[in-house]
């Protein structure tokens, strides 16, 4: 399992109610389901991935996070997970608002555009950075709204969203991935 998933799973409280938005093939959900809480379900846009989740015996709803979060009532989950998909939405701000509406807490991870390797790529090569977390070329990347850890923290502060933000400058340079718990 990805290291990122381990960190996310450790943030979730035992027997809490969880929604994994953009749950992919259900790898993270499966781990959480078996080890932390069985009250977990996923929302996934890809039919292929929905099938994989069903094969794993997970509860999954085929749908689009940008419009289908609407159907969930306010604060209906203890945790809502959004793993590395925020940057791919047309309207990330709306998704963040929806996450905080349906979840008491949201766990959001982003590929950090402030990561030193990315800065070096752009500075010395003058081309769009390609890294493990961002493997695509500029013309085929699904990512529409890239941001750095600092950008995301600044955004939350501006919007009065509570966020963990210790060692911000250090993390912004040396962390490939930002993992946050946010709440209203």
């Amino acid at each position, binding site marked *: 399992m990805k290291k990122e998933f381990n960190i996310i799973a450790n943030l979730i409280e035992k027997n809490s109610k969880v929604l994994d938005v953009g749950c992919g093939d259900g790898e993270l959900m499966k781990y959480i389901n078996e080890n932390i809480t069985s009250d977990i379900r996923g929302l996934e846009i890809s039919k292929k991935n*929905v*099938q994989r989740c069903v*094969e*794993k*015996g997970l509860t999954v709803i*085929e749908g689009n996070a940008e419009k289908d979060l609407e159907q*969930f009532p306010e604060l209906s989950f203890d945790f809502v997970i959004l793993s590395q998909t925020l940057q791919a939405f047309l309207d990330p701000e709306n998704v963040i608002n929806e996450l905080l509406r349906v979840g008491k807490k949201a766990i959001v991870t982003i590929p950090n555009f402030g990561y030193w390797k990315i800065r070096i790529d752009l500075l010395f090569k003058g081309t769009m950075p390609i890294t493990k977390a961002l493997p695509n070329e500029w013309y085929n990347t699904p990512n529409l709204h890239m941001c750095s850890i600092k950008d995301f923290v600044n955004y939350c502060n501006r919007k009065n969203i509570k966020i963990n933000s210790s060692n911000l400058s250090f993390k912004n340079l040396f962390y490939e991935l930002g993992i946050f718990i946010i709440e209203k």
Partner: protein
Amino acid sequence: MNKTEKVKQLIIDKPLKLDCGQTISNFPIAYETYGTLNEKKNNAILAFHALTGDQFASGLNPITNKEGWWNYALGPGKAIDTNKYFVICSNVIGGCMGSYGPSSINPKTNKPFGTNFPVITINDMVNAQYHLLEFFKIEKLFSVVGGSMGGMQVLQFVSNFPNKSHTAIPIACTASHSAQNIALNELGRQSIMADHNWSNGFYEENKKLPDKGLAVARMAAHITYLSKKGLQEKFGRKLQERDDLKFGFDADFQIESYLRYQGSVFVDRFDANSYLYITRAMDYFDLIKQFNGNLSKAFEKSNTKFFVISFTSDWLYPTSENREIVIALNAIGKDVGFVEITSDKGHDSFLLDVTDFLNTVKNFLNTSHNKLNEKRI
């Protein structure tokens, strides 16, 4: 062997008050079972059939000598695995395969009821079938499943009996029959009624059946079960056993010939009045209205775990209508999964060999069953 020997019947002696106001009692429900009920009686599935289905879901239908309507999905080793589960399927009331319907004999006249039979609803069908649980002494079903009208029965069942099934799979259905579908059903009914032989529903006395009207109804309906793409790929403009157009009104095109054939074989197995009654029941189905515009209320008392399935090319019961069910369940935090299966086979997809669909049903049932058994240990 005649028909009655091949049909298992349960006589319901308890009176059943129908939505139309009439009460029926001592009426038969024809049923069939597949697989074995285990000792704990926790492996039972109630499968509901669609408009023209019957209790013979799997194996050979002994009346028509054709394969059961859900042979792809239901049977030993299949998605609904009868080596594992005990499946009950019964003919709906209003039907014509041995359950109480318009072709049953009216004891007052010693003739078939015809259109004197009371109008039936999906709610009535489900309430009648509930007696099968008591008959088999099943405290709680493992699952209720069905497509199309069968899916409507699944929804109504969970609404009426909130804690009588662990899981539910409504497939290619709706919570409220649409104007388009009422229109299409009315087309079928009018075609039956326009057949001179229909005689206001009392055709049995004349020994002349409204076969032509029923065949046209079936032809029209059959088109709605397919998709434009599916039709184009299967038939295109291919000609039927001829090299060129004949400049007449015979079946020049394969699609014409196919539809005529579908109509002609249908009349051998289906009763015209049953077609009227069952389509009416579908039209009257509106679970949203039953709960004053709030579908969530229908499922509020239930802890049943749902899995809703729709098909991309189904324009009769489109994904949007299936999704309404998902939304209603999510809105009250119920456990629901949903998938839209890619298929060019139209509404009929749920009856056909559509791998993703069959795998979804299989995986959902098996993993849910395993989880239930884990909990018990």
